[in-house]
C-alpha cells in the first residue's frame, strides 16, 4: 500500500513536471528577474553594460509615486475608473442577456451564439474597429448622435480626455459582455426548474423570484464573474494601446500601458518593471480572493 502510494505520488508529479518546468522558465523566472530589475537602475545607458547596473533599493517605486514626471497615480485611478465602469455595464447587460437567453424561444440559441463572437475576436482588430466608429470624421457614432439631434457638431471622441475614456470603456464592454453572459447562463442552468414552479405556486412576483431565488442561487457564478472580470479588465493593454495609446494627455493611460511605455518607449527598464510589479500586486490581492472563493464553493481540489 505504502509503496503503491509512493509510486502514484511520483507518477502524478512526473506527468505535471514538463508543464511546470516550462511555466517556471518562461513565467516564474521572468517574474523574479522583473523584481530584481525593479530594484536596479537599468535604462538605455546601463542596459548593455552590466558593470554600471547597481542596486538602488526602492528608488524606482518611490519615484513612481513621488516623481514630478511620474503619472502612476493618474494611471492607477484611470485603470480603476476603466475597470469599474466596464464591469458595471458588462455585468448588468450580461446578466440581462443571460436571463433573456436562458429562456427557450425561437432563435434563442442562435442569437446567443452570435453575440459570443465579440469575445473571440483579436482585441487589436476590435480596437481598430471602435477607433473607426468613434472617429470624428466618418465615424458612425457621431453620425448617429447627430441624426438623433443629440449633438450639433461632430464630437472629437478620441481627442477629448473624458470622451476618450468613454470610448475605450464602450469598446471594452462590447468585448466583455459575452464572457459575463455565458458564465451567468451556466449559473442559471444549475437552478432546478421545480424551484421556479413552486415559487410561482406560492404567488411570488417576477421581481421577488429574481431577488429571492435567482440571484442568491447563482451567487457563486456572480462572484466569479465579478472577480475574474476585475482581473481581466485591470490588465487590459491591447485595446487601449490600439485606440488611444494612453492619450489624450494621459487621460486613458492605464498602469499596463504606462509600464509598457516606460520600458519600451523611454527604455527605463527598471522603472517599467516597478510599474508592472505594482500592477501585479493589485491583481494578486484580487486573484487570492478569487481563488479562495472557488475553493470555498466547491471542493474540487
Amino acid at each position, binding site marked *: 500500500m505504502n509503496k503503491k502510494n509512493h509510486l502514484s505520488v511520483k507518477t502524478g508529479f512526473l506527468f505535471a513536471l514538463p*508543464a511546470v518546468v516550462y511555466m517556471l522558465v518562461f513565467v516564474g523566472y521572468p517574474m523574479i528577474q522583473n523584481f530584481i530589475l525593479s530594484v536596479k537602475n537599468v535604462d538605455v545607458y546601463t542596459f548593455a553594460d552590466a558593470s554600471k547596473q547597481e542596486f538602488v533599493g526602492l528608488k524606482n517605486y518611490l519615484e513612481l509615486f513621488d516623481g514630478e514626471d511620474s503619472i502612476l497615480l493618474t494611471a492607477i485611478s484611470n485603470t480603476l475608473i476603466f475597470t469599474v465602469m466596464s464591469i458595471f455595464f458588462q455585468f448588468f447587460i450580461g446578466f440581462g442577456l443571460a436571463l433573456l437567453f436562458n429562456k427557450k424561444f425561437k432563435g434563442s440559441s442562435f442569437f446567443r451564439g452570435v453575440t459570443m463572437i465579440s469575445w473571440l475576436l483579436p482585441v487589436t482588430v476590435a480596437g481598430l*474597429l471602435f477607433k473607426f466608429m468613434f472617429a470624428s470624421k466618418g465615424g458612425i457614432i457621431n453620425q448617429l448622435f447627430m441624426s438623433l439631434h443629440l449633438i450639433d457638431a461632430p464630437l472629437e471622441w478620441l481627442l477629448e480626455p473624458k470622451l476618450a475614456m468613454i470610448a475605450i470603456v464602450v469598446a471594452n464592454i462590447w468585448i466583455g459582455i459575452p464572457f459575463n453572459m455565458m458564465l451567468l447562463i451556466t449559473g442559471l442552468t444549475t437552478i432546478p426548474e421545480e424551484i421556479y414552479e413552486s415559487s410561482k405556486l406560492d404567488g411570488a412576483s417576477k421581481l421577488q423570484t429574481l431577488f429571492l431565488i435567482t440571484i442568491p442561487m447563482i451567487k457563486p457564478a456572480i462572484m466569479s464573474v465579478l472577480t475574474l472580470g476585475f482581473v481581466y479588465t485591470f490588465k487590459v493593454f491591447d485595446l487601449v494601446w490600439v485606440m488611444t495609446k494612453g492619450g489624450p494627455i494621459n487621460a486613458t493611460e492605464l498602469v499596463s500601458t504606462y509600464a509598457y511605455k516606460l*520600458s519600451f518607449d523611454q527604455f527605463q527598464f527598471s522603472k517599467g518593471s516597478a510599474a508592472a510589479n505594482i500592477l501585479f500586486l493589485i491583481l494578486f490581492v484580487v486573484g487570492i480572493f478569487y481563488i479562495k472563493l472557488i475553493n470555498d464553493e466547491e471542493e474540487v481540489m
Partner: protein
Amino acid sequence: MKNEKGNWKYFIIGAIVFVIFIFPLYWMVVTALKTQVEIFQIPTPLWPKDLTFEAFADQMSSSSDTFQGFKNSLIIGCGATIISTILSIPAAYGLARFKFKGRKLLILFFLMTQMLPSTLILTSLYIMFSRMGLLNSYLAPILADATLGIPFSIIILRTYFLSIPKELDEAAKIDGCNSITSFTKIMLPIAKPGVVVAAVFSFVYAWGDLIYGITFITDPTKRPITSSIYNYVQQYQTLWNATMAFGIIAIMPVVLIFIFMQKYIVSGLTNGAVKA
C-alpha cells in the same frame, strides 16, 4: 396560446440585441466594401452605393504585408498551440488522476499564472530573448504565447479527466495497462473533445496577441498579423476601407473556428472559468 405570445416578445428583444451586437461587425464589412469618398460622406450610406472590392484586392496583392502577416501568425499560432497542448495534456491528467503532495499548490500556481498581466514578464522576457538571440525570430512570440495557453488548457483538460469515471482506470489496470499506457490508450481518446477545446483556445490566444508580437519582432517580414495591422494603421491613418479589409482577413481564422466549433468553445469558456 399565451406561451406563444410570450415567445414572440422574447424573439423581438433577442433580435434587437442581436442587431446591436452584430452592428460593429456589419460596419466593418460595409466599410471595407466602400470607396474612401463614401466613407467620409455626410451622412455616410449604411450600404455602399458604389460597392467595390478594391480594398480587399489591395490587401490580397503580393506587394502588401497582409498575406505575410497571416502566414507569420499561422506559424506562431500553430507553434504555441503545439507546445501548449503537448505540455498541458499530461499535466492535466496528472493533476486530475493522482493524489500527491503539492498537487493543490500546483493547481493554484496554474490558476494564478492565468491572471498575470503580460507586462509583468515582458521586460524580462525581452532581455532573456535578446541574450539568446531570439528577437526577430518566430520562436520568441511562440514561447511567450504558449504561456497564455498552458494554464487555461490545463484547467479545462483537468475537468475533462475528472469527469471520466475512475473505474475505467482500474479496468485498464486489471487488463495490464500501466499508468502510461492507460493514459495513452484509454484516457486520451476519451478526452479528445477537451483536447480540441484546449488547442483551439491556445491558438485563439496566440492569434490575438499583440504585446509580445510588437515587442519581440520589429522585422516587418516576420510580424504577426495583429502587429502588422497595428503598424498599417500608424502609417495609413484614415484609409479605413483598407484597414477594415485587413481586419476582416485578420479575424477570418477566428470566425471560422467560431462557426465550426461554437459548441466546444462555449463549454470550454464556462468550464475553464467557473469550475477551475
